[in-house]
């Protein structure tokens, strides 16, 4: 893409414009009303328009030669693993219970950090699982399923 001189700006602008269009579409059914009798859609649509304009300005900025700057590379490994570990927690907490959810969360998220051995990893995961069971269920008394077999 020869035209894009500053990808960070270009992507930000593009994302803001797309999001503004999407929100405009989502607010489509809402009554706009008048300035005196504002409907629920008045302010959101105003913001969509404003965001669209700002997005376009940022996008234009990203195409201007004066702003040229390379994009920082995206670190895929931590991005995917950290988000996956949280998603795992979400999937596991009501099916497998807190202990397993925390254990899995710690194992998956720790893989994002390259230099960690198997033994310390297991120890850390088990330690945090026990600690959370103790703190959140025993001490704070939150209503959460602790173990896979406790239903």
């Amino acid at each position, binding site marked *: 893409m020869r035209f894009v001189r500053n990808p960070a*700006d270009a992507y*930000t602008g593009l994302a803001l414009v797309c999001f503004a269009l999407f929100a405009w579409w989502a607010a489509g059914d809402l009554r706009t009303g008048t300035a005196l009798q504002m409907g629920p859609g008045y302010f959101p649509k105003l913001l969509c328009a404003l965001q669209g304009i700002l997005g376009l300005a940022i996008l234009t900025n990203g195409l201007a030669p004066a702003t040229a700057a390379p994009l920082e590379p995206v670190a895929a490994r931590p991005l995917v693993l950290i988000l996956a570990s949280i998603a795992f927690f979400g999937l596991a907490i009501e099916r497998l219970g807190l202990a397993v959810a925390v254990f899995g*969360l710690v194992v998956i*998220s720790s893989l994002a950090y390259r230099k960690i051995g198997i033994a310390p990893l297991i120890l850390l995961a088990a330690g945090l699982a026990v600690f959370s069971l103790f703190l959140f269920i025993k001490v704070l008394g939150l209503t959460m399923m602790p173990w896979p077999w406790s239903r």
Partner: protein
Amino acid sequence: MSVLGDFWGGLLVGLQWGNLFYCFLGALIGTLIGVLPGLGPVPTIAMLLPITFYLSPVSALIMLAGIYYGAQYGGSTTAILVNLPGENSSVITCLDGYQMARKGEAGAALAVAALGSLFAGIFATFFIAVMAPPLANVALLFGPAENFSLMILGLIAAIVLAQGSVLKALGMIVFGLLLSMVGTDVNSGEPRLALGISDLLDGIGFVPLAMGLFAVAEIIKNLEQPEHREQIAKVSNLWPTRNDFRRSWPAVLRGSGIGAILGLLPGGGAMLSSFVAYTVEKRLSPHPEKFGTGMIEGVAAPEAANNAGAQTSFIPFLTLGIPGNAVLALMTGAMMIHGIQPGPEVMTKNPDLFWGLIASMLIGNIMLVVINLPLLPIWVSLLRVPYKLFYPAILVFCCIGVYSLNNSVNEVFFLVLFGFLGYFLLKWGCEPAPLLLAFVLGPLLEENFRRAMRLSRGDPSTFITQPISAALLALALVLLAVLVFPAIRKRRQDAL
């Protein structure tokens, strides 16, 4: 009622056992995260938001405030001993603090930093007690048009002093406002932008948004580069010499004053204060060339300033309801969780909360010196805790906290979504703080806009025909215009 009487009442609230405990806890956590590199007050407060549900509003705010100013103390330890700013606002302290440590004067630097912060903290507490009530009384007279313009000014000012592109920060503000529109419209009861998802009917959750943008995104960012360890300087004698004292006390005085004033500005707070205080010391010093080689003034002034600034940034927050930085936006969220809207009414409707919080700062600062100086060896040993051991623990706290809000798995998935969003915002050089400020102020902005328009019979010129509102908007415009001039823009970039 006199300020003194009110303050006394607040002190009694702050001295209740429970509040003393949470004040201590906040100060302790603040020191801890200030010391740990890679973990600052913003992600910590985001992480602890769910816990504040279980506390009374006063205790919750006392604890969160303690974390914020406690981090200023802890941050200086890391800055001086390992040349790493444990916290953004101690970047400046590294310059001379670490050089002092290399010369074997680490103890003196740490002691001056802590005592300077203590003085600044006490000074700032009284500054708040004197400044806040008149300001709140003025703000009580504001109508919807003035409130609207004030919020616009607050949002604009926050980005002027932030880092990075102004245009992108403006984009983030509008984006945050738009996100705050999601949910049920208060006036018509109609769902807005909820896309038919039932979890969105109550709006986007503040906690998953804040945690995702600040805690999760920052963990991912921190994991990009491998950790590098620096030599930890030895601490020998903790007591500064008479000469050190003689040189530091005027610097501490100036730093406290500068911090107290700059903390008032939205977007100001701790970081800007420490920078300006350092520059002023350098200008005034007979030996400006020696700065950067271990001048004690270069530690005393910025450390006093960042603590004073951290505290006085509570003034616009408590009196006008304008959170000037991300920490205060999080505290706004914490207050709203308890059904309290920050603003001028807090002082009259919740005097215990208002004065209790202010008085707790006095107590907290005294606790912090006790926590920091004698326990220094413990904090130094914490510096050796590798990041790989504590970031999974942060994630565990975040996940359990978000889930426990409503026992809703969907909130956890929102956390994933906002973590993703937050990471790309960081990558693309967009500041997440303006987004969060706007998200917090969004519903109020709309409500005041609607009311003002109704009062003016739909005439938008009301915002510029009413004098106070016009002045506030003009100020916002001036701030924006200032940024357009390249010379000033360049100076701002040099400064931050």
